């Protein structure tokens, strides 16, 4: 062992040294697990957004349907993920498919709700002007309501992504892979380092994706002419764009 590392170990508590050791020994695998985790969530979101936004749009036409759909999506959130995986295995087998389906279901509440709320909040005057100028219902949605509601929908997607990154870890239990793997093996083999490192990576992944989507949301808000406190990232992005 190099002397510098030894002196580090001397000033830091022993357990931190063991975590660093674990990271050094498994860096390649940790990176690939993180990417795998990201892939699972990205695929689920790619399916969940069109589904959720479509539902969110449809329920604006009928208040009763809105209440029922949002209530059902809320119920969905209360089902323990491990139970849902178990219920999906007989239909979809093990591995990615049941996990992706479960993640899509869990993400519906924030996406549907925010689409619905975002569309409801669009200035009625803009909608009336669109109607009076001869836009059909579809044109009004596409040209006026959805673009104006986009930042609110984006906030829902952000919310969903953060939830999914956490739930996807449990998917490792039924063979989906990702950062849940070192957590489960850490539990069964009493390897705290694995659990701690994987958890930190999960949080880091969730926070960084959340921050990036937050920038997208702010850019959309700015485009809608809203006056907001811009994050450092948003300001940097605007400088790059302009």
């Amino acid at each position, binding site marked *: 062992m190099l002397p510098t590392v030894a002196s580090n170990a001397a000033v830091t508590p022993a357990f931190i040294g063991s975590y660093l050791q674990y990271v050094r020994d498994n860096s390649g695998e940790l990176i690939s697990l993180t990417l795998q985790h990201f892939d699972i969530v990205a695929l689920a979101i790619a399916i969940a957004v069109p589904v959720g936004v479509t539902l969110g749009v449809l329920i604006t036409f009928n208040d009763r349907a809105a209440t029922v759909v949002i209530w059902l999506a809320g119920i969905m959130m209360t089902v323990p993920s491990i139970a849902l995986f178990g219920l999906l295995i007989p239909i979809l087998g093990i591995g990615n498919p049941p996990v992706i389906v479960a993640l899509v279901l869990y993400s519906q509440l924030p996406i549907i709700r925010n689409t619905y709320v975002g569309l409801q909040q669009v200035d009625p005057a*803009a909608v009336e002007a669109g109607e*009076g100028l*001869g836009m059909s219902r579809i044109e009004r949605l596409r040209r006026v309501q959805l673009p104006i509601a986009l930042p609110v929908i984006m906030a829902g997607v952000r919310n969903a992504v953060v939830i999914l990154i956490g739930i996807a870890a449990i998917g490792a239990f039924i063979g989906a892979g990702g950062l849940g793997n070192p957590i489960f093996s850490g539990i069964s083999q009493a390897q705290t380092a694995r659990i701690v490192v994987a958890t930190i990576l999960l949080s880091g992944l969730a926070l960084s994706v959340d921050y990036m989507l937050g920038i997208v949301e702010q850019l959309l808000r700015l485009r809608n002419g809203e006056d907001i406190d811009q994050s450092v990232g948003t300001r940097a992005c605007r400088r790059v764009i302009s």
Partner: protein
Amino acid sequence: MSTIEFDNATKVYDDGTVAIENLSFEVEEGTTTVLVGPSGCGKTTTMKLVNRLEDPTEGTVYFEGEDIETLDSIELRRSIGYVIQEIGLFDHMSVAENVATVPELKGWDAEDIDDRVDELLELMDLPPAEYRDQYPTELSGGQRQRVGVARALAADPDVLLMDEPFGALDPITRENLQDEFLDIQERIDTTILFVTHSIDEALKMGDKIAIFDVGELVRYDTPANILEDPGSEFVADFIGADRTLKQLQVTQVRDVMHRDVPATYDHLVEAVTNGSATGTDGALVPVEPSDSTQTALSRIIQAGAEAIPVVQDGRVVGIATEEAIREDTSDRRQSHEVA
């Protein structure tokens, strides 16, 4: 020919509210007709019957001779401009994109749309170079409504509907926009239906005024005729006590001026031509034929003169005397009293 005709139109809302009952009148092509009345009188509903944001429960509305319910509502709306008090600009689109809305819906070529947008922004006194790429939230209230009007006029509509277009603006901006719009109105030759709750705005903007009481049309005539003879207590109350003053506001200088200037006023004409116009008390600013007699009278009083030269395109075209203005107003009153 009438562009819009209401024939016994009745509108009852689902909750049983009767908005208008047996309404019949015609809007003449190329004129500005102002619907005025207290709130809840059905004037906005009447306007919405024209672009089918509402359909009558009974009766018929005709647009260029055709029963409006046989026309496709989307196509109809694209041939009718629509301006509302809340403006309703699309905040996520630039000024140019907002103005281009209807031409784009109609599928114009990009180049034609660009030219049209520039033309309208020029018309609205919003230089395209500066305003095209701005966003609505960067504009003042007055500028926003100019964009709103430009957007409504973009596809060169046959009819323009304006629902309290200047109602939310501060008084100074409102007056400026009214004046500018009067000017624009002469250039665009579009039939305009204008809704307001302000009788002053109605008298100022309208060629014809339709005064509404709750759910019914009580008077439909020119501003001058209505001021001369309100015809009913409701209309007289609605106009208010300062009827004579309002008459001065709606009478144009061209209607009272002497085209041949009597020699006694040569000194005034000369003063104006020399650019050294002063009456006994101060500067005498000449009026234009399209100015109101109120403006003329106020300048006459201000300058301590007995008359004021009327100037058009830098040339003196006549003179408006205080006497002529007074006579004109009392003539109108007397003609009503005799009648």
